[in-house]
């Protein structure tokens, strides 16, 4: 069944897009990640213009994070105060990111910018995750590792504007969560991802937040950054395809439900190692595309850019 996408201005197979949404949704439910980092490259691969892929993905992530945050909200795993501070930074970051996106688009460098940021972030985070989970699996077999210090004080904690976050039992500078939010916002706008894979470790290691609150709080602020990104991309770059978002959403929601069930049966370290392998594979594929000679060194863009 072919469906015409009004903004991407192309015809796609609806079942293919639903299937892609389902597969990515399945993996995101299984590993508890947003899945944007898989979906954006997949969309570009089937011929959706990169700008439309990123804008639409932001829209789809709004729905994914709303349905994700509900479960955490019911268990009280959301630190709203910290989330709000983060999302103030997040919205600023998104605005900045959408502006950078527009400039790069006019310069004709947006494709390479998207690919480079994917290779850099996915490569780094995926590599670290791979090492960490491999080490955890080995350590579990030989439980001799020493316990580290609970709280390490680094220069980041000496920043001004200290604020008390009762829910997380933290007394830290507001600049720290806001700064993490800014980075997350830029990622949403440029890469079409929620940024959970970067926010979660940052909240654990930089903020020393209780692990139980991290997922819910990051999802909470991702709702707002992706919503801001959708609005701004729609208003300035006209790159949100509602039809495509709808197809992705339906597939994603169904896939995520099955993924969650399977995911609960896999041990944490093994799940992380599998996720890390997928992340690194995507990074390698995109890196290969950057360096391999293109089919045609000339490309064409019609209309006013």
């Amino acid at each position, binding site marked *: 069944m072919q469906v015409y996408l009004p903004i991407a201005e192309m015809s796609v197979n609806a079942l293919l897009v639903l299937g892609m949404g389902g597969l990515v949704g399945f993996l995101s439910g299984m590993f508890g990640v947003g899945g944007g980092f898989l979906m954006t490259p997949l969309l570009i691969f089937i011929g959706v213009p990169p700008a439309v892929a990123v804008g639409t993905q932001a829209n789809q992530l709004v729905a994914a994070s709303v349905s994700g945050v509900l479960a955490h909200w019911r268990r009280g795993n959301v630190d709203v105060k910290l989330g709000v501070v983060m999302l103030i930074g997040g919205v600023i970051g998104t605005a900045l990111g959408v502006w950078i996106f527009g400039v790069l688009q006019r310069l004709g460098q947006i494709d390479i910018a998207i690919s480079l940021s994917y290779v850099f972030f996915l490569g780094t985070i995926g590599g670290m995750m791979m090492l960490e989970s491999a080490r955890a699996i080995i350590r579990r077999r030989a439980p001799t590792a020493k316990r580290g210090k609970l709280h390490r004080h680094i220069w980041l904690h000496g920043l001004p504007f200290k604020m008390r976050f009762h829910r997380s039992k933290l007394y830290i500078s507001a600049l720290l969560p806001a700064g993490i939010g800014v980075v997350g916002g830029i990622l949403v706008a440029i890469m079409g991802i929620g940024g959970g894979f970067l926010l979660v470790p940052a909240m654990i290691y930089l903020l020393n937040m209780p692990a139980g609150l991290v997922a819910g709080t990051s999802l909470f602020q991702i709702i707002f950054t992706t919503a801001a990104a959708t609005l701004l991309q729609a208003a300035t770059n*006209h790159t949100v395809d509602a039809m495509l978002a709808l197809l992705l959403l339906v597939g994603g929601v169904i896939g995520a439900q099955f993924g969650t069930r399977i995911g609960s049966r896999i041990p944490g370290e093994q799940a992380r190692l599998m996720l890390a392998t997928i992340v690194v594979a995507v990074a390698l594929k995109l890196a290969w595309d950057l360096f391999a000679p293109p089919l045609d060194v000339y490309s064409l863009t019609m209309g006013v850019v």
Partner: protein
Amino acid sequence: MRARLGGGRLWVARGLGGLAGLALAGVLAVTLATTVWAQQLVADLSSHLIAITTGFTGTEVVLFGTTDGVGDVAIVVTGPKMPALVRRKERVLGMWMNTRTVHFSQAPSFYSVATSRPLDQIVSKTLLERQQIGVPQLTLAPQESLDAQEQAEFRDALIRNKRRAGVYTPTTGTVSFLGDRLFRTNLYFPANVPTGLYNVEALLIRNGEVVSAQTTPLVVSKIGFSAEVYDMARHRPITYGVLAVLGAVAAGWTAGAAFRRV
């Protein structure tokens, strides 16, 4: 204008069955026509509107026509002219990166030619150039001042990319004659056909010269849901963005609530 008086629509209604009617309509059109040129060739389309709906996967439009005697026919379909950017990648630190951009201000977004015989057999190169028939003859001048070789490279790249997208189709003999005077051809428009006002030009060629020409408009437009989405995204982007966000929130909420017990 000219011979597009309704004779064409009449034929369409009757279809191929009523050949007598066709001939009659042709005669009628000839008598009504005002210029000498128009008398020799009359053509019309089975539809003057290509509607891009949600299920659009490309379409065919039939072009019918008649001539006043033996001759060759060439049909030139030109899409709306638009600015085009051609970018060239070069290796930068091992990566392939866009380093050069050339602007073409007036490139047809769509171009196809159908002829009754291979073009080079019916007209001379000079005539092709004068009338701009066929992709190689298109006037595509870059805004930047480039040397001849670079200009040719960028021009070829534009055409190559358009061909790959299926919107510049190579010249082939696909106009078929029914007898000496009636001709028809199927014009194909792919799913990614650019929207806008098209010109369909029918040329009658005799002894290597164009003796008659007629232009018929064709509109390619988004219709229905996809058109509404596109219009809103273009003209009321803020409302569109807000609706997209609200829709996503509602969908996410519904999904989260529906699968609550799972």
